C-alpha cells in the first residue's frame, strides 16, 4: 500500500538540484523543475549509480558514472547506455513540506 512520506521542506529544494534520499528500501531522487517537483528512482538502470549525484538540466537527470540521461517527469531513458526507464513517484506540497508517495 503506497503511502505519503514527508521528504523535505519545500524551501530546501532548489531548481535543478536533485535531492537523494531513501524511503525504506527505495532510493529516490527528488528534483524541483520549473513546472513542479518530481520524484524518480535514484538508481540508474544501467549499472548501480545514484542519479541524484549527476548533472541536472532541462528536465533531465544524467547518470554520474556513464552519462545515461533520464526524463525526470516520465522516468524515460533518453540515451544509452541505459535502456530501461526509472520508476516515477507522485509528489505533493502541503504546508511548506514536500511529500513523495511510495
Amino acid at each position, binding site marked *: 500500500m503506497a503511502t505519503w512520506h514527508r521528504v523535505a521542506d519545500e524551501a530546501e529544494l532548489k531548481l535543478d538540484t536533485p535531492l537523494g534520499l531513501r524511503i525504506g528500501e527505495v532510493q529516490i531522487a527528488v528534483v524541483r523543475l520549473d513546472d513542479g517537483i518530481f520524484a524518480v528512482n535514484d538508481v540508474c538502470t544501467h*549499472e*548501480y*549509480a545514484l542519479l541524484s549525484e*549527476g548533472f541536472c538540466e532541462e528536465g533531465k537527470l544524467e547518470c554520474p558514472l556513464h552519462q545515461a540521461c533520464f526524463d525526470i517527469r516520465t522516468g524515460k531513458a533518453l540515451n544509452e*547506455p541505459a535502456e530501461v526507464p526509472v520508476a516515477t513517484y507522485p509528489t505533493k506540497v502541503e504546508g511548506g513540506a514536500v511529500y513523495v508517495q511510495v
Partner: protein
Amino acid sequence: MTRVVIIGAGQAGRRCAEALRERDAEATIILLGEEPHPPYDRPPLSKAVLLGTDPGNGLFVRAPEFYAEKRIDLRLNTRAAAIDVAARQVVTEAGERIGWDQLVLATGATARRLRIPGADDPRVMTLRTMADAEALKARLATRPRLAVVGGGLIGLEVAASARQLGCEVHVLEAADRLMARCVTPAISDRFAALHRDKGVALHLGCALTAIEPADGALLLQAGEARIAADLVVVGIGGVPNTALAEAAGIAVQDGILTDAQGRTGIPGIYAAGEVARLPHAFWDARPMRLEAWQVAQNQPVAVARAIAGEDAPYDEIPWHWTDQFHWNLQVLGDPDPAYRLVERAEGEKLTAIALDDQGRARGAVLINNGRDATPCRRLIAGGKALDAAALADIATPLRNFL
C-alpha cells in the same frame, strides 16, 4: 535492396547493425560473431562479472529476441576466414560464402601477450572476452595470490575486483606511475594511494623479464625483485584485429585506416569501433585509434550513416571511464601532462581541468565527480579562454563558466 555484412558481433557490430536498421527498413543485415554469445558490452567483465554482482543492463544491452525483431541476421559461432573483394563475399571458416554490397569490419582487438619466458604458462591469463572473464572468475574463487602485469585500466580494475574478493594482489607496472597513458601524474598518485590503502602491492618501474614455475606456483622476475603468485593476469593493451583486412588488401597501420566516417580505401568496405584508425577532429585530423566504450558505441553509427549515404564524420570529444573500488574516474579530451592543471577538489571528489597556454580547456579528469562531466565537455567544446584562478574556486559552479 542493400545487403550489408558486419564481421564482428561485439558492441561496435551491434551498434552498426541497429543504426543501419533505423535508417533502412529494407536492408539485409547479417552480423557475424565468433563467440557463442549475442553481442555484449565489455566494461562489466572486469568488475560485475568477476565480482558476481548484477551487471544490470550493462552487459547484454539487448534482449536475445531483439535481433530477430529488428531482422538482424545474427550468426554466432561464425568466424570469417577471408574477404573476397573481387566477388564481394566473406568466406567463413566453415567454407560458406556470404555475399555483400557493403561490408563492415568490426573485428575489435585482442589482448596483447607478454613476450617473455614463461608467458605461455596456462596460469598466465588475459581478459578480453566473456569466456576469459568466466575462466578468471572461476580461478579467483580459490583466492589465489594474483599478480597483475600492467597498471593500466584493465589491470587495475582486475586488481580491485580480486582484492575485493579477498585475494592477495600485486600489480607490476613498467612505467613509474599508474595509468600513465591517460591521466596526469597527480591523478596516478591518487590512484596509487587508493590501491595501497586497499592492500594492493604496487610495483612501479618494474620490468618483468621472466615467469618461472616454482613450488607449484609462479615466480615473477623483475630485476632483483621476485614476486610469487598462483595466477597472473596480463593487461598491457590491445592489438587490433587487422589480419582479415590486410589479407584483403585494405590499408592497415596499427588499425584499419579509414576516413573520418569509417570508409576504408576500398569502396563499400568500412571499419567500425576500436579496430579503425581515423582522422580525429579533436586532434586536428591526426589519425587515431581509440579503445573505448564511447568509440564502440558511436563511431559505428557514423559508419551506418556513411552506408546510408549521409555525410556525418565521427568527431566526439573523447571520453572514457574506469571504476576501481569505490572510485569512478572519467577522462575527457586530452589531459596531457604538459597542460596546466586546475584542480577543483572537495574531499575525495576531484575535477581537474587541463588548460592549454591560451587558457582553453583541452581535457578534464574527474574522480567521483560525474556531475561535472557534461559541463567539462562543454568547456572543452567551447574553446573559450578561461581564468585559471576563477576556475579553481569551487564555490563557483562549473556551469557559470560556460
